[in-house]
């Protein structure tokens, strides 16, 4: 692990953007964890404070109800990150398990599961997510995460399967079989460490995909919202016409910027991981 961190550090030092991405992600994770401790909404909203431009008290101005936009961004980090990470985690776990097991076991199981995977791979994810979300109407993070990962796992499963397939005939897996290790042991202890890098990068990009779809759902009001959420902030700011005056546009641009910054951070950080795991790129 330490060697991994060391090479990650080296890669990040070579790629400033990736380093910045890592720092930003860490920052947002901290905000998601500790945000509710440091940021609070004004319990008695007041229109008298509405749409104040940026100031020392309100670095990003205030929204339609005089709430500090920065505080809302901070409080909105948790639900966004929660759902994004949860969805990516589900995507990756399902994708990896299915990919490894089918790739390793092969045979009828493989062909059956891969036909199913192909179907999910073909179904366009976003429309399906919208359809399910509109039918289910839940704001539970776990349910949303499940909906968001409904098709995303398929691509990963296929990629992991092809890797597992190439590992299957390797000597070290033969050695594991010789030792009589059970399937789950082989999959978890032998196969998983080898697809780890690919999975890690996929995980980061799945987070961005999940956040994209999640915010979109809230933005269009397809999923019901509770509490402060970036998508909801944009939704409210848009319906309040916040874009159209200089004083109020921060309440719209700030959550938009937060989403963009987080997305870009994930993509850039994924690049550093890619460099670490792909020596071919490192040498370039």
């Amino acid at each position, binding site marked *: 692990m330490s060697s991994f961190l060391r090479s990650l550090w080296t890669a990040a030092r070579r790629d400033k953007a990736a380093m910045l991405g890592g720092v930003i992600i860490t920052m947002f994770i901290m905000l998601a964890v500790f945000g509710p401790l440091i940021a609070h909404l004004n319990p008695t909203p007041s229109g008298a404070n509405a749409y104040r431009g940026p100031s020392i008290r309100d670095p990003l101005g205030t929204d*339609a*109800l005089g709430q500090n936009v920065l505080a809302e961004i901070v409080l909105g980090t948790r639900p966004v990150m929660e759902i994004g990470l949860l969805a990516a985690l589900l995507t990756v776990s399902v994708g990896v398990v299915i990919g490894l097991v089918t790739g390793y076991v092969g045979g009828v199981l493989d062909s059956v599961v891969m036909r199913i995977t192909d179907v999910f791979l073909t179904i366009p994810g976003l429309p399906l997510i919208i359809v399910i979300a*509109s039918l289910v109407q839940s704001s539970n993070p776990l349910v949303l995460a499940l909906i968001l990962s409904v098709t995303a796992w398929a691509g990963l499963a296929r990629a992991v399967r092809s890797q597992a397939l190439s590992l299957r005939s390797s000597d070290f897996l033969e050695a594991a079989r010789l030792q009589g290790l059970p399937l789950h042991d082989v999959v978890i202890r032998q196969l998983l460490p080898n697809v780890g890098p690919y999975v890690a990068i996929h995980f980061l990009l799945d987070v961005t995909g999940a956040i994209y779809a999640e915010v979109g759902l809230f933005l269009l009001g397809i999923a019901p919202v509770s509490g402060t959420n970036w998508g909801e902030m944009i939704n*409210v700011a848009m*319906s309040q016409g916040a874009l*159209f005056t*200089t004083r109020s546009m921060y309440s719209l641009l700030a959550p938009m910027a937060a989403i963009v910054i987080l997305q870009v951070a994930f993509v850039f950080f994924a690049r550093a991981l890619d460099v670490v795991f792909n020596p071919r790129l490192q040498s370039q």
Partner: protein
Amino acid sequence: MPRPGLWTSIRSGTTPPRLAAATSHVRTRNTLRLGRRHAVAVVAAILLAGGALTGTSAYAASRRSHGHAAHATTFTFGRQGSLLTRSFNPYNPNWVNFLSNTAMMQLAFQRPFDLLGYYPELASSITISGSMATGRHITVTLQRDQWTNGKPLTSADVFDSFLIEGAGGGNTIWIDLKNVTTPNAHEIVFTLLPGILADQVMPSIDTIIPVPASQYAHLLPASLKAELLADYRIYRKSPTNASSSTVGKAVAAVDKAVVAFSPARLISDGPYELHAINTSEILMSKWRGFWDASAFTIPTLKFTVLGSNNAVYPAMLSGAFDETLVGMPKLIVGQAEHTPHLTLFKNGDGTTVKGLFFNLRQYPFNMRGVRQAIAELINRQALVNDVWGQFRSGAGGAQVIKYPSPISPTIQAAYLTSTQVDRLNPYNYDPTAARKTLEGLGFKDSSGGWVMPNGKPFDVTIMAPSGWSGPDLASTYLGTLFNGIGIHAQVVEPQYEQFYSDLTGGNFDMIYFWTSCCEITNPLSELTLPLSDYNYSSPSEPGLGIGPVTTIPGIGRVNVSNAITREAAAVPIATKRFDKLVYDWVRWFNSALPVYDIGFQTAFSVYDTSRFTDWPPKGSPIFETQTQGSQGQEILAMQEGYIHAR
């Protein structure tokens, strides 16, 4: 000078000389300013490239750069809506509403606060004869007019339309009707039942939009009139028996056929005819066969229909529309007020009362004390100020209803005496009293927030439809407020359809929405919205959860939903019985508080004066007329000699 109300004198001549002079004057002025405009445009473009994000100033700049030097020939309406599914049949749910009062005209425009007053339209006159004791006769005489297929407008067209209205149940006049006849091609006579006031049925007659018999007659059996009269005879005794009767079913079958009818092309009779339509635009050109075609000086109308309000706002602010009618949040109203070329008018159609509804079947809101306590926890004045704002525009604005009830303040003032009003509870903002009330009911304020008498934390969910700027903001406001007090609140904003089904299904704690709309004459009609539409439309849809059978002091034990619907339809206005009913309902509402009215607000029409000028003055009765389409007032104004291209 055009004088609203002196209808015939204005329309008899051709274009007033004043207009021609004004137009040419404007044209010269524009030419003179052209050079300067170009210079400004260049500077503006440079400024914009640098500081494109500065919204307010950007509008002013873009405004100038998009000024129209040429004489404007197209009047553009900005609207929110959808033209994805559309029908040219006014009785189809997908009827293109923008064709009402542009291509399809109603018989007359109802004058505001004057039940017998009207601006004649397809009807040249409406006269009342006979006595109330034996039943009044209302005679509608039609204009000499032509459909776009060349056929003349006759009483047969109106008669058929009237049958359709009756079959669809949309027109309440049939309840009060004894007969309807067409003595000749230009006249149609409505005979009312004895004891029915003409005042009450006039709005129903005025707003009928005739459809061409050439398209609709084949859908209507010859026996329909007799069936309708029989059906409504049964209905007067029992609404439920009516729908299950043989005639009731026959009538419903006709309605089904009419609703499903989807004509391939529109045969219309209005000042404009449909020229082209797609999913976002409607183009209309002047129809020369319209009886008053000469009154209309603008050759083309255009509707730009955008998917969401927030697409309409910037376009409106930057001068893309000549007239805009959308729900506007405070910020946009303020922005529009500060935009030089825009003028805000109160729109008579848009008076709404906003309120917080409770689900009376949901613990702990089934306790009246809880509802009353929450009323005192909300500073309604502050909420109205913060959410709806107080606007400078004289005619409009939001204000707090002093004595909460689902009836708008103007109507409260008109129908209740001051002694009656004084007996109502104002529910002033008083958190201390609210606390006491809650504690008296067994609620406890612990460190982790309020705990209900049953030992569970006091959690509430406030539901509002997503994308509606007012309810959106107000529910967020209330959620924050409750959380601050220690009542854990969650704001859920589902899509409107989901919201509505949850509302009628009684699947909610609290809802922020409005209680009435568009009804400015009959207070009991306003009550039908919360009491029958939002409440017990069927056993599976308990809605607000009032009843179904409840004892109302002064009225007795009634099925709330049925009683209010029947009374609104059948009890004549301006009778003692009517006034007493209004008071009893309002008093009960006020004390039981199934709904807290928080404020009311009017909708605004926004006029752009950069291409078209000479709008009717603020406060003109034109803006209070009842019309079938949101553009009726503008059409009326044009017809009255207002609104001209610069």
